[in-house]
């Protein structure tokens, strides 16, 4: 399926796009000529490509939602049904009853993800700022050292973190999860925020300093409000990572009441309830929802923050 979509779309839009940009650049007159030939083959090809890509992008999500409303038996039918014959909310209704520890997993994930996000932001924001504003040779070396960690395989760190937390009796605790999750959001976040600060002119800060603000107050009152999109993007990234994290969570928790969602899913649904597809899909929908909601709320800041940071960094 994907090859077909790919072949089609890779060719068609690239032609269409450059043509199009050339067209509307000169101004209004051209837009009008464009309206006249509204039904051009290029437009048709464009919409066909869009449709094919959207089907690819959205179909699995559709399948997830559709299955979550099916009855247990219907999920096993061959051939599978596209829409639930009888829509049931049963799989959603049983979630709060906590039969599978779902509420506990959800709560744990939420706590750990929020803590990780806060810790990451508290550490990464000042670091990203100074790395962007200081240009002595050592600063560059520090930046390289931080970037280098981005290339570290986390499993290499995990081996030692596990033995360390074990010795300290910190397995199955929130701080252990929070600290270990921070390992992969922190370097990336510093780097992104540094990139974001690089895109900002220093004029405002200079003016504030002339007006007598100290550097820290300048950071707090002038810089942070401007870099909010970057902070939002980085925060979202840290949250998403923690919410998704499986390897560290699986290793560092052994008691069911400390499990986060990802290991909870793996150990619960696959172990005992392997065949309860609609239940699992309903739980999946609920798990994906917070991220989708946050993403939709902050989409604008997120996109500008992420891209500004990455392009400059």
């Amino acid at each position: 399926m994907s090859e077909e979509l790919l072949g089609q779309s890779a060719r068609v839009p690239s032609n269409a796009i450059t043509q199009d940009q050339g067209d509307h650049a000169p101004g209004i007159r051209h837009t009008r000529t464009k309206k006249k030939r509204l039904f051009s083959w290029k437009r048709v090809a464009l919409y066909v490509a869009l449709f094919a890509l959207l089907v690819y992008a959205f179909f699995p999500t559709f399948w997830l939602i559709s299955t979550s409303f099916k009855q247990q038996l219907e999920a096993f039918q061959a051939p599978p049904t596209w829409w639930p014959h009888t829509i049931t909310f049963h799989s959603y209704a049983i979630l709060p009853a906590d039969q599978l520890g779902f509420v506990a997993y959800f709560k744990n994930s939420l706590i750990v993800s929020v803590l990780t996000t806060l810790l990451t932001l508290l550490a990464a924001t000042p670091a990203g700022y100074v790395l962007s504003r200081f240009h002595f040779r050592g600063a560059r070396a520090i930046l390289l050292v931080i970037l280098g960690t981005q290339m570290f395989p986390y499993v290499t760190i995990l081996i030692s973190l596990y033995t360390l937390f074990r010795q300290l009796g910190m397995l199955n605790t929130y701080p252990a999860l929070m600290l270990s999750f921070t390992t992969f959001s922190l370097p990336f976040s510093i780097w992104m925020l540094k990139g974001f600060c690089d895109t900002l002119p220093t004029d405002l800060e200079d003016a504030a300093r002339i007006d007598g603000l100290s550097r820290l107050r300048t950071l707090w009152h002038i810089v942070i409000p401007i870099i909010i999109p970057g902070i939002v993007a980085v925060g979202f990234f840290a949250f998403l990572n923690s919410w998704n994290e499986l390897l560290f969570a699986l290793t560092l928790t052994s008691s069911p009441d400390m499990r986060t969602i990802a290991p909870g899913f793996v150990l619960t649904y696959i172990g005992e309830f392997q065949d309860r597809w609609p239940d699992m899909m309903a739980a999946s929908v609920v798990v994906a929802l917070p991220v989708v909601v946050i993403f939709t709320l902050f989409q604008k800041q997120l996109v500008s923050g992420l891209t500004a940071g990455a392009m400059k960094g």
Partner: protein
Amino acid sequence: MALFNADMAPNQPASVGNGRSSPKRGLNGPWLFVVLMLPSAVLLLGIIYYPAVNTVLLSFQSLNLAMPFANHWVGLENYVKIITNPVFDFWHSVGFSALYSLCSTVVAFLIGFAFALVLNQRLRFQQLWRGLALIPWVIPYVVVAYLFFYMFNSQYGIINQLLMSIHILGWQPFPQPLAWFGGEGKLAVIATIFAAIWSKFPFFTLMLLAGLQTVPHELLEAATVDGAGSWYRFWHVTVPSLRGIIVITTTLELIWGLNEFAIIWAMTNGGPGDATNNIVVNIYRTGFLNENISYAATMGVIWLIILLAFTYFYIRIMEGKTAQ
């Protein structure tokens, strides 16, 4: 943070009587750098560099969590074993990691780029399409894994159903349902890569779309005036202006793909057999399921060296191309 607030609190700038600060008021110069770097430095040292060094030390020992007191130094013995003994499945898992990462990144990049190009056009309901295209990005990996596991099910999965329904002039490429997670596991490899592609492409779409909006119109216009065709403009104007973003996004996705765990573990547990046993799954199995911490540490160190070398050359090559 405490230091940070302490300096914020006094309202009179003059009262910040740090003897160490520069003639200007407030924290400044090297001390400002140190103070603001401190939280990150402590965290990086404590949870990344210290454990990394410790892992290297562990790789020269014989720590097995089942017998923690029989631990002693063994020199390079672990390295020799891991590299030469096929029991550890080391080179196969390195190979599978590379295959998985490369295939999923390349295909996800192409799909993501195509999507970005389409969404960069003026379309009706543009925001809606953009939102829909980005959905896979925010679906947790474990959910992606199970969703595709379900869709690839050999008996009641929708993918077999779709494949079997293909009839081209009486030719049916897939008359039988495929056992995706059985047999030698070649199909399981495809299934995991397929799931990874779906979960990865929106990142490319998001970044490239933002990049496309910064491609200077004057350049495209100038090229048009010079009589360049659309294909030429795409390759010689659009792609070069996106080069920076392309290098960064592909590097990140390749690295993330090489260290993938969640999708593979949740879908196949590394199986059938060792077919989808990538290096991270291998290390997890060795170190945490079989409790051979030192073997796992050794694999981790070799893997770290391979990755650093890879990144170095990859960035070198890409930067070299940019310089042309």
